[in-house]
């Protein structure tokens, strides 16, 4: 069978939908998890500093750090991972700052979202995009 240009476009569009589908499902999962954390409260877009490399050399070990002055809890999601939850930090009375760093796995290029619960019960969040490269011999 010979493919015409139109066939290719149709197939291509179908493939694009197929590719987009699982990400939509993931997106709903992390949104649900954020709602569960915030109880549906409004979430401010300032007050949380989330740091991650713009380009991760290897998705297996991506250094990330988060800081939110006055936060009692911070939860981090990787929107494009099959399980979006990454980590939840709870800061106790002996904490020196509401900040922490760790290393995480990212299944591909995606957004990381950190949501902080402040001591006064309000919520704030920050989002960063991390490009995960496909390695040559290293990957």
């Amino acid at each position, binding site marked *: 069978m010979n493919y015409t240009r139109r066939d290719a476009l149709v197939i291509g569009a179908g493939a694009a939908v197929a590719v987009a589908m699982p990400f939509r499902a993931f997106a709903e999962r992390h949104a649900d998890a954020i709602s569960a954390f915030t109880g549906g409260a409004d979430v401010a877009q300032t007050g949380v500093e989330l740091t991650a490399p713009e380009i991760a050399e290897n998705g297996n070990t991506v250094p990330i750090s988060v800081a939110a002055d006055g936060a009692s809890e911070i939860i981090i999601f990787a929107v494009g991972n099959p399980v979006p939850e990454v980590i939840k930090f709870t800061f106790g009375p002996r904490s020196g700052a509401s900040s922490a760093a760790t290393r995480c796995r990212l299944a591909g290029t995606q957004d990381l979202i950190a949501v902080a619960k402040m001591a006064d019960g309000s919520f704030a969040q920050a989002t960063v995009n991390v490009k995960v*490269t496909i390695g040559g011999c290293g990957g």
Partner: protein
Amino acid sequence: MKKITTLCAAISALALSTGFAIAEADAPVLSIDGVVIATRAPAPEYLDIDEVISGWVFRTVETQALQMDDFDNPGMIFVDQALDDWNEVNGSEGKSCASCHTGGPEEFAGLRTVLPRWNEDAGAVWTMEDYINNSLVEHMGAEPWKVGKAQMNAMVALISLQSRGMPMNVAIDGPAAETWALGEEIYFTRVGQLDMACANCHIDNYGVMIRADHLSQGQSNGFPAYRLKNAKLNGIQSRFSGCMKNIRATPYAVGGPEFTALELYVASRGNGLSVEGPSVRN
């Protein structure tokens, strides 16, 4: 044409985030707990390049940072494990490494810089793994450890660490010359379905992107290396094996004579670079 320009811009933007593209004067310096590591050195006269460059230079800023503090370097937990093995009695003689090497692993300061080297008694070039296994079997009456496996890589890392900051200085002449020549031949011989030699990547194309990675010079001064890819220490001969699989060739045996010859030759291509042991790579 415009697309190509955009692509090139994207690639150079990516290149900027690694040490390699940064001008010499601003080049990042690898200093680990006060020990300055030579990550660039004039090439030995028998090489076809001007400068030898550690793999550390080719990595992104984030990966480089993991090696600049021994606590941040995950490879160091395996050094801790090796210290446990060092002190543990093992084998029929009732001895640990510490029983004979009463000065501790520090006795081996400098050893890593000259390995692999000719062993007169054995009549062959020996790697550090060969020396460790000889001690296990002959002195301790224990089973040898598998070359390239976790326990061996950790001990090689512990002993290599004692030479951190010292320049690699393997001998290529005298009785080692024949083995070195075999290693050189392997380095330049095209093999596998992709018909490539070590030299095609690591001499002809270092600094160039291979997909989203920077090709390095393939130096061994940082081995064993903790790789982000598999989150463990990797021995140099296992890395050779991985390279050969990438070019769809049948790898030589890890611990066998071909890879030992190649290990000597590759080490000699890094003479002048500091031992990093254990390094962090992607």
